[in-house]
């Protein structure tokens, strides 16, 4: 069995310095545990201009890392897809979402489509299935719920932060690990023309209705706004439910009013 873990160029949430993405290190940990228990080949993959501190993933249990060198503005998708197709991996692990400014968590889905693979999101644990060529995935759902899925390999799985903590960093492991550099594919992205700014938390706006009113009224307005709203229909007939939904969508301006 061959396992690949996708690593992205992350940044530390506070210092802003290049750093591995924690959930991807958890993916490395899941894969390394799987390798230790059931035996498999494990490789890390990164497509980008330089590898930087992603080398440190080698200290978290990854035996080797392949760096596909692409230009700074290149889309990593074609490089990764080509390398993954060529490597004939059975299991491809990725983080749920990376940490860069434009990272939307869509790359695993785009990759799965490009490779024609099924994708399972938010894994918290992995185990081989009873029949060969299958994998048991424990999926993390909101509020601590778990769902167990049985999938046929090959498959692309994204890892959830609820997975076990990453293995502690071992300096000598990073020193021992093998970093292989290969040219990636040039895939210039069309310029998005977006302006990039550091994130600044903004103060919450006090509901206009209560501006200037008494403190109690402002509190009421603020808490009411936070508690959502809407109407609760219990077991409505389908037509009524559809009408309500359309009316709501029209009310908030998503669909045009008829």
């Amino acid at each position: 069995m061959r396992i690949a873990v996708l690593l992205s160029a992350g940044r530390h949430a506070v210092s802003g310095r290049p750093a591995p993405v924690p959930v991807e290190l958890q993916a490395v940990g899941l894969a390394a545990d799987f390798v230790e228990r059931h035996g498999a080949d494990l490789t890390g993959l990164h497509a980008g201009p330089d590898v930087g501190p992603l080398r440190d993933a080698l200290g978290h249990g990854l035996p080797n890392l392949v760096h596909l060198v692409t230009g700074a503005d290149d889309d990593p998708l074609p490089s990764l897809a080509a390398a993954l197709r060529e490597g004939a991996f059975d299991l491809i692990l990725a983080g749920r979402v990376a940490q860069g400014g434009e990272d939307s968590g869509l790359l695993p889905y785009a990759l799965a489509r490009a490779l024609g693979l099924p994708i399972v999101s938010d894994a918290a644990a992995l185990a081989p299935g009873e029949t060969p060529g299958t994998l048991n995935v424990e999926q993390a759902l909101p509020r601590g719920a778990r769902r167990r899925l049985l999938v046929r390999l090959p498959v692309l799985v994204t890892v959830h932060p609820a997975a076990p903590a990453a293995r502690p960093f071992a300096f000598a492991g990073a020193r021992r690990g093998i970093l292989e550099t290969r040219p990636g594919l040039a895939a210039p992205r069309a310029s998005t023309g977006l302006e990039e700014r550091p994130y600044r938390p903004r103060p919450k706006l006090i509901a206009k209705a209560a501006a200037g009113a008494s403190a109690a009224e402002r509190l009421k307005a603020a808490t009411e706004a936070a508690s959502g709203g809407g109407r609760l229909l219990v077991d409505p007939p389908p037509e009524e439910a559809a009408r309500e939904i359309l009316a709501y969508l029209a009310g908030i301006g998503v669909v045009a009013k008829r």
Partner: protein
Amino acid sequence: MTDTALALALLVLAMAVVAGALAARRARLWRAGRAARVDWLDGLAALPKRYLVDVHHVVGRDPYAARMHALAAGGLLAGSALALAGLVPLLGNARLYWWIVALAFAAALAGGFMVGRRRLPVKPARLSGGRFQRLPLLLAAYAAGGFLVALDASLGGALRPFAFVGLALAAVGGIGLARQLDRGPMRHAFAGAAHLVAHPRPDRFEGKPATALAPLDLDAPRLGVATPADFTFNRLIGFDACIQCGRCETACPAFAAGQPLNPKRLIQDLAAAIQPNATNAAYAGSPYPNARPVAGIGGPDKPLVGTGAMIHPDTLWSCTTCRACVEECPMMIEHVDAIVDLRRFQTLELGALPVKAAPPLMELRYADEPGGRPLGARTDFAAGLTLPLMAAKGEADVLLWLGEGAYELRYGRTLRALITLLQKAGVDFAVLGAEERDCGDLARRLGDEATFQRLARDNIATLARYRFSRILTADPHALHALRNEYRAFGGAYEVVHHSAFLDELVAAGRLPVGALGGARVTYHDPCYLGRYNGEVDAPRRLLDRLGLERLEMERSGRRSMCCGGGGGAPVSDIEGERRIPDIRMGQASATGAAIVAVACPQCSAMLEGVTGARPDVADIAELVLMAVEAAPAAARAETLA
């Protein structure tokens, strides 16, 4: 010369041969260790001074043990050597000479009785049993036998039947003692002497602190210590020098708290593992408290740490690196160095850290701060105070190193007091602000030498950009790193602790202080200031200047007890029965003091965390500020009393 006296002399010769052979066999095992630079000539020349002054200074803290050792060891060596010299006809035929021999053996006998009286009828918990419990019998038999033979010889053979009994006793005792040389208590005699000669920290005999950890070569094929053969040979000699007196275990805070660490047992496990196919079965002292099960097997090339080896990892991570064991050890063993060497392998090679110790190291790697907090927020505690930045000034007389405590609300109050005092005294100072990284103390004690070295180099590069004459810090851990440990990486600074600095200011009259109305205060020495740097006087002098009634705890000064906050112990968080700060606070309460004066962010955090009725915790800087504010209006002092 009587025939029995001749036989005694030959017995001593036989003992010397047996002992020599056993010592040589043991010494061959030390060669498994790695090479180390040892100045043998200097070491040999310094041996008498190291033994008579440095060792005696430690042994003498227990006067009974000192007298016992002087009589037993002195009498044994002198009696044996003189009896052997009796083979020279000129001496052997002089009856007066045998009087002297008898006197020496009488001294040894008295020493042997003292050894016995200490262990019988009830053996104190800190002393080991087994072979150690048989030692007084062997000593007494050999000394009494030698005495009878020598007495008979001095009387020209008048007590011949007694001399024969004596010879038999001496033979049993003497050969028994000689046979103990490689494994029993007598090993400390020759291994101890060799350890003093080849000591890995010769500077500690020259009155220097010699407490900085040795830098690790990060390009070495194996980082840290996994097997006994990874220790340098003189460290192995050190483990063999242990006499199992148990002074370390009575001083160890982790042992007192019921965590699975006993320095004596640790050293014995390390010493036992030197032999091929070793087991820990021969040990007869007190165990690791709440010991985690281990296989207890090892060898020169077998791993030391792990459930299948000699030492459980929890033992390693219980240590607060307070050096109390090192301070108490009469054989000058360096326990903390051994623990850090073992930790280095666990951390750097295996990544086998306690679960909660890994995240701070991760944050240190990518954010230079163990809490992962922004470096710019370090000065947030000083909101409202003017805090000059080095980046703006370029130079200042004093560079104030804030340390990790600055992020903490409680310790922020201390730093505010210190800054207010500096401003009142007109000191020209500045802080690094967002340019200050963690000093790396935590990383280094947890064995992450790679992160420590990177932080040290980065900090040294930052400091090189500015001109200042001294670094002032309120954190003894940062003080130790900056003053003693950065030197190996090219950073030599004059670093002063705030207690010494404030003492200077008050002495020079730059800070007029009023009396604090005789409040009762007890001072808790931070390990990294007192034991690591020998600074125990300045804080006390300063407290005395404030008009406080100073009380001393059961353990103080260089022999003070740790608060439990050092060596990464708070993040390793190894389970015990009690908390170390609770024990220390108990000692503080026992003095009847209303205030525990502290001088370290860790101590302040640990002691403030003690619940229930207890003395208040106040940093020295806070007390000085109170005294300065009390100076114009002495009436305010009464609020404290």
